[in-house]
């Protein structure tokens, strides 16, 4: 729980995550929802906000939003669209269609791998804006020669997921975003790429003295483009606020921008010139009113989510959730379960999946994986040999017995090792005496010698076992 905060201070974070939905078309028109096309080619009167045009909601986007809501344990009910009014050139209508006091999803939670549940206040549907490019020396609006706007992104469906300020550590903040990504990927509603902007995270950061009940003034940190920056930005901001308090100053409520290059947050809009968005119900759209059958259908169609999958695998492997979380994150939990169910030792399955299969499973099948683990467990192969065979099975597939034979691999049997070790004791009496006297580093010498004469095909565990037996003899 190290937040790199000064003693007695507690970190309070709430996250607002914008997710671009991967629907084929935009939220309110038939234009293609596609990243990277020639500017202003995926546009029409509706997403350009031309006079007289009207929005028609994309049902697929609504279903996606409701699926996400249910996955986040939210209540999904009647919702209405609202207009958020403010002037900006990349917003074609100079208002954004969003949801305000009656969002599609309310009051849910996201369970983190650590078991902590972070409350979700709401997850609402809204449209994205276009993109402004300021042309000129600075790349900023001030000092630019002119600006160009690309409306291809205008009207792309977004879900904004707002957490309660229940995140207490930087690791939790990162875990929250990771876990949310896992849910989005499982639902297949977004490609969830933070670097490409299909997930955008704003962090509301405040601090307070541990034990206080009231929340203090928060700042909203924007422009965070990776998990790493998220952590750095929160840490910087929390310490900035603590410094102010310790100098008897009070932070002002404002939006601040994270500057990756110099690792600081800088003030954006302050409260004084904060806009009044004059929200009101969008009169061009009708309320969304899902009936119980729709909600049931959505619930039945939900895939299993990381939290459940972690629980399932942990139970099956009889291990702690934290030990298998990585495997679920990689999506290898189904494979692990199948291998364990074929009779392989869970500990070894998890060990290999965690350490030796991070690049993917390739041609490996659960059956082959299970027999390999059995060979390793019965000391037919040493762990070094097993690792080598495993690598080959990933590349080529096949049965581990055949691959081991192909490589001429088989663990040297115990009798043979005993003979070898007896010979070594005779050949190196001084070293043996030192070993028996408790000089543990000499053990390495004997293991090394055995490995040398077996060309590495001996099982280290067995060698150590024999050496220790000899001492007690």
């Amino acid at each position, binding site marked *: 729980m190290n937040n790199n905060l000064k003693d007695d201070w507690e970190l309070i974070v709430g996250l607002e995550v914008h997710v671009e939905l991967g629907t084929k078309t935009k939220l309110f028109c038939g234009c293609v929802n596609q990243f990277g096309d020639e500017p202003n080619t995926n546009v029409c009167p509706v997403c350009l906000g031309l*006079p007289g045009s*009207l929005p*028609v909601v994309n049902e697929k986007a609504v279903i996606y939003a409701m699926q996400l809501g249910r996955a986040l344990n939210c209540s999904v009910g009647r919702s209405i669209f609202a207009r958020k009014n403010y002037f900006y050139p990349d917003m074609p209508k*100079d208002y954004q269609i969003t949801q305000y006091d009656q969002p599609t999803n309310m009051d849910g939670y996201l369970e983190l791998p650590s078991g902590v549940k972070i409350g979700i206040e709401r997850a609402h549907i809204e449209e994205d804006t276009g993109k402004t490019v300021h042309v000129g020396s600075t790349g900023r609006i001030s000092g630019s020669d002119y600006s160009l706007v690309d409306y291809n992104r205008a009207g792309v469906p977004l879900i904004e997921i707002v957490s309660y300020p229940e995140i207490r550590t930087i690791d939790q903040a990162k875990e929250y975003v990771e876990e949310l990504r896992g849910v989005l990927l499982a639902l297949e509603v977004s490609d969830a790429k933070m670097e490409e902007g299909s997930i955008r995270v704003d962090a509301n950061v405040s601090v307070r003295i541990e034990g206080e009940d009231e929340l203090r003034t928060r700042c909203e940190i924007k422009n965070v483009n990776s998990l790493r920056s998220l952590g750095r930005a929160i840490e910087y901001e929390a310490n900035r606020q603590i410094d102010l308090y310790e100098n008897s100053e009070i932070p002002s409520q404002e939006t601040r921008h994270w500057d990756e290059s110099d690792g600081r947050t800088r003030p954006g809009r302050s409260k004084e010139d904060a806009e009044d968005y*004059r929200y*009101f119900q969008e*009169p061009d759209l009708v309320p969304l009113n899902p009936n119980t059958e729709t909600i049931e259908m959505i619930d039945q169609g939900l895939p299993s989510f990381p939290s459940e999958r972690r629980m399932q695998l942990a139970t099956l492997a009889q291990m702690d959730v934290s030990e298998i979380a990585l495997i679920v994150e990689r999506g290898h939990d189904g494979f692990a379960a199948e291998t364990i169910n074929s009779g392989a030792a869970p500990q070894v399955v998890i060990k290999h999946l965690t350490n030796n299969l991070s690049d993917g499973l390739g041609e490996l099948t659960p059956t082959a994986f299970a027999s390999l683990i059995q060979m390793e467990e019965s000391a037919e192969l040493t762990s070094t040999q097993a690792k080598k065979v495993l690598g080959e099975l990933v590349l080529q597939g096949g049965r581990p017995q055949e691959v081991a034979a192909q490589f001429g691999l088989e663990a040297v049997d115990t009798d043979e090792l005993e003979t070898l070790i007896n010979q070594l004791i005779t050949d190196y009496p001084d070293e043996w005496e030192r070993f028996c006297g408790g000089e543990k580093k000499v053990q390495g010498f004997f293991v090394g010698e055995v490995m040398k004469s077996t060309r590495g095909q001996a099982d280290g565990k067995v060698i150590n076992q024999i050496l220790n037996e000899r001492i007690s003899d």
Partner: protein
Amino acid sequence: MSPSVPDSFVTAESISEKVKSGEWSAVEILDKYLSQIEQHESEVHAFNTVLEGEARAAARETDKRVASGETLGPLAGVPIAVKDNLCTKGIRTTASSRILENWKPPYDATVVQKLFSAGATLIGKTNMDEFAMGSSTENSAFGPTRNPHDLSCVPGGSSGGSAAAVAAGFAPISIGSDTGGSIRQPASLCGVVGVKPTYGGVSRYGLLAFASSLDQIGPFANTVRDAAIVHEVIGGHDPKDSTSISEPFPSFLDGLDHGVEGLKIGIISELMGGIEGISPEVIGKTREAASVLSANGALIEEVSIPASLYCLSSYYLIAPAEASSNLSRYDGVRYGLRVQGETLAEMNINTRTNGFGNEVKRRIMLGTYALSAGYYDAYYGKALKVRRLLAQNFDEVYSKFDVLLSPTSPCTAFKLGEKTSDPMTMYVNDVCTIPSNLVGHPAISVPFASGNDGMPIGVQILVPPMQEALMYRVASTLESAKSNEQ
């Protein structure tokens, strides 16, 4: 001398029938109306754009199609004038605002498409109060329209150009939009039929929005039957408008001559003297209309819609609130007028300052204020409550009555400049028409009488949503009673 209705008064229905039978050519018909425009448009100024060339080409095409034996729609060869806030592909659509003076939409409004499919010939785009904000068509950036019955008078508004175009014989039918009475009030002042359909009955796709929850497109015509024909053409579900009603409406024409025998008709007492500012003459003529209906077998009774007392206040918060948002897009960035500035904000401000007229600015400010944090509940929120209350009032009344009757406009056409100095006197013009917009119900204004000044007086017939067939039936009864009298 005012142009008045042409001697050879013809209906859209008869034009279409005769064009289709080959008896008349669409070009000949068009030329009659074009020559009327040529003679009197300079006095009336009903149009922002007259589409002589385009209309001729379209009429020729219609005649060709008739000659080749094609089956044409119910408005074949009928010239039609369309309000300048409906998008017409490649044709200037200005909403009578400097900010869109030269804007040419890349698409047709759904209504315009439907008119074309029905064979109509678009003869021009009509003048209006800027962005439909006004009741006299004096708020046009391109100068006012005058009432064909008396050129010193206003035609009403905001669809004054469309009303005047029909009254002056520039077109047999026209299209307007009605947010608080903008079709019915000018219809009454110009002596023509004007209809505000059920909200959602006609697609708003391609209508430059004023107040989206109130706006509805509807027809002007010389006869109730023509209005019903045009209404059937432009109505129906449109997947491009989410507020469009998907259920089909019963035919507006089938029962047109079935009379009013046994119908329970309520006269709205608040609009018959309950609210100040409605002229006794207009109230008297509305009572005459009730007597006519009674003589035709309807049961007439006074009814109260208590919330109508607050309609004007509610409307002048809701409509400007929505307008303040709808008109934000005219920022100089993408289309229309741009007046440069040192910064982006300055460019936005310069453009809007120069592009919008005073009434539009006034309503944007009113609406922005009504929606502001700290004021929302006191203004916009309260206005919505009145709206809900009004809907309850209507529900209750319609549980006992089939139809409601009231004046359309509190007075006959007034003089140009008479009410421009005080916005409040102008706003009161909508007092009888606003309730239907707030609840989304249909209503029609039918010319019924003339005032002492010789200017037309219309009466308004209101019915529950989707009951337009009944509305046209009652209107038709009143119309024929009037013509029998003459």
